[in-house]
């Protein structure tokens, strides 16, 4: 019974949190000084020599209607929720009219997922392996050296890494291209090769920073566990060091790290905004950036809503799964 009460209260919180987040984001772009409809009409009238003022007026109305920009801000707000809840449709993009927002996001998502999923998982694996070793044998000089390197790498913002990597590998040793250009399509060797070449630097900049954090946190956790009584006992009993590390220390130390990984995966939909922009990578981060520059309300709402749901969803899943992973924790 307690379990259902817990589940219900978590679901309620999830819905409320997403609702408040989306509401806050909805009202911010309405204060932007640029009006997308006027910009579009301006573009059309400048292209064709003459447009009947009456035709312009009807055009304005049609555009406002299809963008959901009719009426007061409040009725727009209600209309937005009705449309999104009933049809999961964010409407057409204003800047790339008439491409629907859902399609634009669908096109950018695999890029970001590919880049961030790979770099997050790689840095998690490497970082935790190094952290475990460094925490388990913390008196060894190599442990101290590894920790020192991580501390030097972790606090530096990832876009600084991106800039340094661009400096090193695009100017000084021109191995990788400066901005991404993709050749070919589908499962051809040419396409895959250009994918790898263009994703290496952005991925590397995020792996370097990510790994540092995992090393530091894993080392703190595992060095604490390595001093627990049951580890001493196992050692006295004659259990091999390798087995103590993998069977006694690792499972307990990995738990909080799994939680953190889940939370990080939720933030993936944010894209690595600055990295994607700096490298010209066609993912969600670039999409968010462009949508903001072009005052594309629908696209802004679509991308940010996705990100809010993903982050809140990850928190929800973690809260919910934790008692399964750790038998010491109970729902309450």
């Amino acid at each position, binding site marked *: 019974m307690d379990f259902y009460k817990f589940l219900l209260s978590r679901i309620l*919180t999830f819905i*409320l*949190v*997403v609702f*408040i*987040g989306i509401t*806050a*984001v909805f009202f*911010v*772009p309405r*204060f*932007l*000084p640029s009006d997308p409809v006027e910009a579009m009409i301006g573009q059309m009238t400048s292209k064709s020599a003459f447009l009947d003022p009456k035709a312009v007026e009807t055009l304005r109305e049609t555009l406002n209607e299809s963008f959901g920009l009719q009426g007061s801000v409040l009725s727009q707000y209600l209309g937005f929720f009705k449309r999104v809840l009933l049809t999961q449709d964010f409407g057409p993009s204003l800047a790339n009219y008439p491409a629907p927002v859902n399609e634009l996001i669908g096109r950018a998502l695999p890029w970001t997922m590919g880049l961030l999923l790979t770099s997050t998982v790689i840095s998690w694996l490497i970082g935790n392996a190094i952290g475990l070793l460094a925490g388990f044998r913390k008196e060894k000089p190599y442990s101290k050296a590894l920790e020192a390197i991580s*501390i*030097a790498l*972790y*606090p*530096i*913002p990832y*876009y*600084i890494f991106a*800039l*340094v990597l*661009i*400096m090193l590998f695009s*100017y000084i040793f021109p191995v990788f291209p400066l901005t991404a250009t993709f050749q070919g399509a589908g499962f051809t060797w040419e396409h895959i090769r250009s994918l790898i070449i263009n994703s290496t630097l952005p991925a590397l900049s995020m792996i370097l920073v990510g790994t540092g954090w995992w090393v530091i946190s894993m080392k703190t956790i595992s060095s604490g566990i390595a001093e627990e009584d049951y580890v001493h006992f196992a050692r006295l009993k004659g259990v091999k060091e390798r087995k103590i590390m993998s069977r006694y220390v690792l499972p307990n130390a990995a738990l909080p790290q799994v939680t953190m990984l889940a939370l990080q995966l939720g933030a993936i939909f*944010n894209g690595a*905004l*600055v990295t994607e*922009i*700096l490298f010209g990578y066609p993912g969600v981060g670039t999409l*968010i*950036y462009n949508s*903001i*520059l072009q*005052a594309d309300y629908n696209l*802004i709402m679509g*991308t*940010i809503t996705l*990100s*809010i749901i993903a*982050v*809140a969803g990850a*928190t929800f899943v973690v809260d919910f799964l934790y008692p399964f992973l750790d038998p010491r924790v109970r729902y309450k």
Partner: protein
Amino acid sequence: MKNWNFRLKAGVAILALFLILGMIFPFFYTGNPIEWGTYPKNLKPSADHWFGTTNLGQDTFWLLAKSLQNSFVIGLLVAFFATVIGALLGLIAGFKGGFIDRLITLMTDSFIVIPSLPILILLGTMLKGRASLLYIAVVLIVFNWPWPARQLRAMALSLRERDFINTAVFSGSGTFKIIVKEIFPFVAGWSLANFVNTILVAIGSESGLAVIGMSSNEKATLGTMIYWANQHQAMLAGRWWWIGSPVIAIALIFIALFLTMTGYQQYSALRRGK
């Protein structure tokens, strides 16, 4: 100073160096370091211009000093207000419980899920790169108070059960007085670490925003320095002193802040006898 560990010493030493450079040096420079064309362009580092000059004819050293000043002011402002607001709300939520707790927790959770960088870019475009530094600081405060609030609420929940708090309640102290007099000594250590971390986050967010041209482009901050250097292809032209000095400064400051934060945590853990 006696029991300071290596991290704390190294962190504070590097920070002190940059603080002197950023907070004291700018007062010894008579002109305006941001003004274009004050000096010949693109000079290499020399005795006259320690860090060379930029493509816009600014002295890189003095520009860096001014940028450090602005970045530190943003960092300190945001860290101070975000920590104080977050700490107060978190402690009140933890102590009062009930409806107030639920309301504050809901606000905290909601603010945490909103992606801050897109919103900052959005607000940046509204002002077309002319945002004042104060404006950026205020927005950063809005996005940074929930973290300390969440942590301190958890701490307050466990402290509430302690005996000395009950004693204080039964001897008639008000909630606010209990928070300030009885609780604050317990959470001060964590709050200080959070304060330092928020300086790091604030300087980092502002620079990230500035690198893509969405901050106060006409003001000198570490981020806008990188922005202008990028705009003028400092890397391509091999003017490493221009792009290099803000990048290295940010990296060193961040390492120093991180060392100070973790060093202080170790130091206070030692003092508690752990």
